[in-house]
């Protein structure tokens, strides 16, 4: 069908009827979305205010679950930070090793990266906790006693005397396992970051009389940081998620606490609710970190454009 175009009449491409109809479904969707959000809120409210054991008053889920979950979310964040610090250290050393001119250092770093990146985190954590820890324990090493002795030397062992030995051991080996695993990923991140800085920069700095240390600290690192920060924050988010695996080692962090609250429930819908609530906790932590990562990325992209 041809439309004759007369002068003065604006040329308008009409959307087809089907497309207009589909556009209208959007409005319906918004209404549905609001309903769904309201329903989800009511779902949370309903189960948080339901008495856990029928017949007892005041024994509501909100008072019992939320403090526990918040406390253990704090532990999750704590062990993630400790592991990330360790991973950063290992990654930095590993990157220096991969870029070293001394071949054995290069081989060692390559083997580290390939082996760690080729095997599951879960198996590595089990390996550290049930393999290495047991061998060292039979040889007389125990993280709790080591910590206790260290604090005794510092004359403040009352700080750690009340800690549970199993918790300290699981924390120690969990942090080592996660740090060791993410160290390998960060090795590659730092390596590509360091390699991305043009070699002319290093040459110019050295010819201006800066020594190797100053060159690294003042010239290379500030430029490499821009490229490494976005993947670094992304790996931190995955590390927070992988710290949930420590529940398998018996370390009582958020995931373990969710299970401990959920398994004894006989009512399956309360059980499901606790799992949903726990997932929500992780979502809040990780999503806020993801927003931070996106913000940093856009900031750095802006700085790069000049």
């Amino acid at each position, binding site marked *: 069908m041809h439309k004759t175009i007369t002068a003065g009449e604006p040329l308008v491409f009409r959307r087809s009827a089907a497309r207009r109809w*589909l*556009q209208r*479904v*959007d409005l*319906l*969707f*918004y209404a*549905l*979305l609001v309903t769904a959000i309201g329903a989800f809120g009511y779902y949370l409210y309903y189960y948080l205010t339901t008495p856990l054991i029928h017949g007892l008053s005041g024994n509501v889920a909100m008072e019992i679950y939320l403090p526990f979950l918040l406390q253990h979310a704090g532990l999750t964040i704590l062990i993630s930070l400790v592991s990330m610090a360790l991973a950063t250290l290992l990654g930095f050393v590993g990157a220096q090793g991969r870029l070293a001119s001394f071949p054995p250092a290069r081989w060692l770093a390559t083997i580290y990266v*390939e*082996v760690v*990146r*080729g*095997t*599951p*985190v*879960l*198996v*590595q954590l*089990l*390996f550290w906790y*049930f*393999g*290495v820890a*047991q*061998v060292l324990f039979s040889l007389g090493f125990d993280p709790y006693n080591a910590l206790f002795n260290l604090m005794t030397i510092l004359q403040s062992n009352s700080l750690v005397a009340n800690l549970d030995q199993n918790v300290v051991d699981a924390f120690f080996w969990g942090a080592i396992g996660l740090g060791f695993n993410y160290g390998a990923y960060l090795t590659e991140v730092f390596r590509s970051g360091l390699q991305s800085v043009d070699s002319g920069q290093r040459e110019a700095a050295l010819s201006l009389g800066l020594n190797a240390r100053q060159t690294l600290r003042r010239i290379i690192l500030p430029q490499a940081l821009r490229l490494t920060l976005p993947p670094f924050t992304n790996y931190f*988010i995955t590390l*927070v*998620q*992988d*710290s*949930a*695996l420590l*529940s*398998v080692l018996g370390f009582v962090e958020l*995931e373990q606490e*969710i*299970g401990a609250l*959920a*398994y004894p429930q006989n009512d*399956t*819908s309360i*059980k*499901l609710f*606790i*799992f*949903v609530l*726990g*997932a929500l906790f*992780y*979502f809040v932590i*990780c*999503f806020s970190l*993801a927003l931070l990562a996106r913000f940093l990325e856009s900031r750095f992209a802006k700085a790069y454009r000049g």
Partner: protein
Amino acid sequence: MDLLMTWLPAFLVGARNTLIYCCISFPLALLLGLMLAEMKNARYVWLSMPAKLFIEAFRNTPIITQIFLIYYGVGGVLTASNLAHFDNAWVAGVACLTLNYAAYEAEVFRAGFLSVERGQSEAAYSLGLSAWHVFRRIIFPQAVPLMLPTFVNDFIYMLKDSAIVAVISGSELTSTLLLATFRNPGNTLPLFSLALALYLAMSLPISFVARYCERRLRAAF
């Protein structure tokens, strides 16, 4: 050595099951991921918003939380209401791996489609091709080679993440490893080494393939 020889057949069966988990879940994840990517790109909010919510929800929660939620939470409710019954971990494991990886693959697809220059589809439209034809003949063939190395890498990630099925006793390599360590609590290091070696034997060849793809790709451009 005796210990390793007695457990080796069980470990090999576990490794086979790991591969089965991945070979079922990964194509399903690709399919769902493609659908999610197309939905997220749609101009209608009722298509794009659910896809966005799905992707954010699955990318921002640990896979172990998801697997517990699906197996004990959803599975429990389904059993209680006589809708379904989980006899073993296969359904929950495959469902969890599929849903989780679909969220990641959706982003890969989206990035791949975006990397095909806009002028290509504009030219195709102006030649009179329909939207389906533009996607099928112009965008998809150009985007796939770009996405291939990422897919291979993600397959390796799934191979490693499938270890998580062990927490619901999923009869794959890590489950076998756990069983073996519980039977021999005094002598676990050889068993761990065997499991780690088997995982390496599965993932290293695939990562060489990925690197080969990447090199070919770099040569092509």
